[in-house]
């Protein structure tokens, strides 16, 4: 038995990384807030003089803030690529509203008699601004900066999705891997940073107004220093750049395996799989971790590198159902098994490509596929019961559910309904065991590692052989859950390393060992 790793152990092991992420996080937060102050305060001053524009400007900043953060980051990618640049711009846009609004209301809030007296004594507009309006509005402006900073500490966690680093790397890695320690190692420092910055800024805000006059000059300096943290960690630099999902970063059958088994050490960024493929295509990244049958592999002209030392377990898809369902609907298994062996990797990639990239309807794609395979039959009577088909929210799920629906309707007298989009593995599997759905397509690798939580030594002994994995999983499911795995469909939707086809051909890289040699030679 391995002893369970505590949060403290994790923090100790990863202290270097934690420090780096914290500094990056602080830097991201303060660069963006600094920019927002540089733009937002003058904008606030401007609209306090041209009140007609205030609605427009505040409205714009308000709309920026209503865009969901992950979407805003997404919008930035076509414009600015991946990495710190788009993250800073997105965070800057978030920080803008509280700063513009508070500058505006702060200046509006200055006692009109004081303004009248200042003007009446012969102050110019500039003197009025610097000697009266800004100092008196300062507590309100600082409150805005405080709000913006706290918001940005939170939003900056999402920067990890677009390879800008920060504490989000641990948080999202932890969520993806269901590793609580990793998640907390990101979340707790992020919360502490928010509390710390909030507290420090609140001190500033309540300091004697006399001193805030000097603070006006000191504050940007402090922010500048904090911003420069962002530049510190970025010292290591190789020629090839890899982008891996947070989940991949922390998995044994992921980056950890790449390092220990292949000895592959390269500069890596953490990135969301939603944008990873495009980033590779746009040459922002050279190597990515993908899923081998994703439609975007084809769309963006990438190639999968062969896993010649077998660190990625096989992920063969097959429908799974409760034993009781098979007994109740005897015609079901033969109908479903008509698909067995029919879809290989490249066909699945093609089907995904049509749905993900060409945005075709999954039902249309499913129907076209069945027709081409001469499996499309007119629907039967549908009077002998109803079969509920589930699927997870990603890729293959929608298409396979549609195919199964048509097969069942065509080859049996059962009716079929689909319940797609059932979230992750855990949700859809619970739905199956609780008799809320009758079947869904699952992957052997997921069954092995996630649902069965198979011990390491067993996994290691069978991981290189897809048949052994299938046998082990179907026996164990039968025993543990009374659930049956039907025959695999044929494709293997495994983790894979991929790169641009042009690069792979130019440098003759066809498997991961070749990539490792290439990287080691070049660095």
């Amino acid at each position: 038995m391995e002893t369970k790793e505590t949060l403290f152990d994790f923090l100790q092991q990863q202290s270097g990384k934690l420090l780096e992420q914290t500094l990056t996080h602080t830097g991201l937060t303060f660069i963006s807030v600094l920019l927002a102050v540089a733009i937002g305060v003058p904008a606030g001053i401007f609209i306090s003089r041209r009140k007609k524009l205030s609605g427009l400007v505040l409205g714009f900043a308000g709309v920026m803030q209503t865009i969901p953060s992950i979407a805003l980051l997404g919008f930035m990618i076509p414009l600015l690529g991946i990495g710190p640049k788009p993250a800073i711009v997105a965070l800057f846009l978030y920080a803008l509203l509280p700063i513009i609004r508070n500058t505006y209301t702060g200046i509006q809030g200055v006692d009109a008699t004081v303004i009248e007296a200042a003007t009446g004594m012969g102050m110019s507009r500039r003197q009025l601004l610097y000697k009266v309006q800004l100092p008196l509005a300062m507590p309100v402006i600082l409150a805005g900066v405080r709000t913006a900073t706290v918001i940005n500490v939170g939003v900056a966690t999402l920067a990890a999705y677009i390879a800008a680093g920060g504490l989000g790397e641990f948080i999202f890695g932890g969520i993806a891997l269901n590793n609580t320690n990793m998640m907390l190692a990101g979340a707790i420092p992020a919360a502490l940073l928010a509390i710390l910055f909030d507290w420090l800024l609140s001190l500033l805000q309540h300091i004697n107004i006399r001193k805030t006059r000097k603070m006006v000059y000191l504050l940007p300096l402090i922010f500048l220093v904090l911003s420069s943290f962002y530049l510190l960690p970025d010292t290591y630099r190789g020629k090839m750049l890899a982008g891996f999902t947070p989940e991949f970063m922390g998995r044994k059958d992921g980056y950890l395996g790449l390092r220990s088994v292949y000895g592959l050490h390269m500069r890596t960024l953490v990135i969301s799989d939603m944008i990873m493929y495009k980033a590779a295509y746009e040459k922002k990244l050279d190597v990515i971790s993908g899923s081998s049958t994703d439609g975007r592999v084809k769309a963006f002209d990438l190639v999968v590198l062969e896993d010649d030392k077998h660190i990625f377990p096989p992920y063969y898809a097959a429908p799974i159902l409760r034993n009781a369902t098979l007994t109740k609907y005897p015609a079901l298994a033969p109908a479903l098994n008509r698909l067995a062996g029919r879809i290989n990797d490249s066909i699945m990639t093609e089907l995904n490509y049509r749905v993900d990239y060409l945005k075709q309807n999954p039902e249309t794609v499913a129907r076209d596929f069945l027709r081409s395979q001469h499996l499309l039959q007119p629907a039967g009577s549908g009077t002998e019961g109803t079969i509920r088909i589930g699927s997870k929210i990603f890729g293959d799920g929608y298409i396979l559910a549609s195919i199964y629906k048509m097969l069942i309707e065509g080859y049996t007298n059962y009716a079929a309904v689909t319940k797609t989009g059932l979230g992750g593995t855990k949700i859809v599997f619970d739905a199956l065991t609780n008799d809320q759905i009758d079947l869904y397509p699952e992957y052997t690798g997921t069954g092995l590692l996630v649902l069965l939580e198979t011990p390491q030594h067993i996994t290691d002994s069978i991981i290189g052989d897809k048949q052994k994995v299938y046998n082990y999983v179907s026996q164990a499911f039968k025993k543990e859950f009374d659930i049956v795995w039907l025959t695999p469909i044929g494709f293997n939707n495994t983790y894979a390393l991929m790169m641009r086809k042009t690069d792979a051909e130019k440098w003759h890289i066809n498997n991961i060992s070749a990539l490792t040699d290439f990287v080691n030679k070049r660095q």
Partner: protein
Amino acid sequence: MIKLDHVFKNFGPQKNAVNDLSLEVADGETLVLLGTSGCGKTTTLRMINRLLEPDSGHIYVNGKEIRQLAPETLRRTIGYVLQNTGLFPHYTVSENIAIVPSLLQWDKATIQQRVITLMDKLRLSPAEYANAWPQQLSGGQQQRVGLARALAADPPVMLMDEPFGALDPLTRISVRREFKALDELSNRTIILVTHDVEEAFELGSRICLMNEGTIQQLGTPLELLRRPANEFVAAFLAPQRLQLELKALKIKDLWAWLPHQHSPGYTTTLSADQTCWEAMEAVISQPILVQYAQEQKILDSSGLMQAIAAWKN
């Protein structure tokens, strides 16, 4: 010193806030703009330091059309006192007083000297209050800081908009008394706005009574009382007429009607420039000696009353 020439100003399509106003204020004179609230006093005042621009007409300060000067330059030569002081809450008392001299870039030592002088004259102990914040002072003290601030750069012209308006009645009387006695103000050209008739009679060399943006009468307090220009003026002064007469009338105005008595032994004296109101207050306890043009008379309450009655006829 100050001249307004057919000045008009309106804020909307309805009626003019200031309607064809012409007046002149002589050097060293205190002119009071008097009238009910909303009659255009503040508007008139704000046009003189260009916080507002007139729709038409001309305004001259010191012989110069004010539009020839940059507004900031003009304003730095005009002291401005507001009803609610408008002290800077983020400046100390001494910093508040130093604002205009700093804008004029006086050297530090001169500014410091001037601040201390003014604080002394206005009975604000520099040791105690120089570094205090305005919020820490009483209303009367704040108003005196406001006055010191307006006087700091020694402006030839002062504009004061209801300077005592925000004070409670007792404080108002004492601050007003100090105000009258202040040598800093004695030779300055002042336009003072008030809606308080008594205050106008007490402080004004001349009074300009306004209604709905126009001048009803412009003259000395006595002229307004004795020869009201129209019904409005008479009606405006009627409720406090007796008191106003006593305040407007000076002992010297009554000299001819005061009985000739002389006996040695009275030492308390009163100046003939003081008002009947002040004389009445003084003679309540004992008769007093007044000297006017080489002549001395003893004043008691009955003699004073008879003289007033005689003057009225």
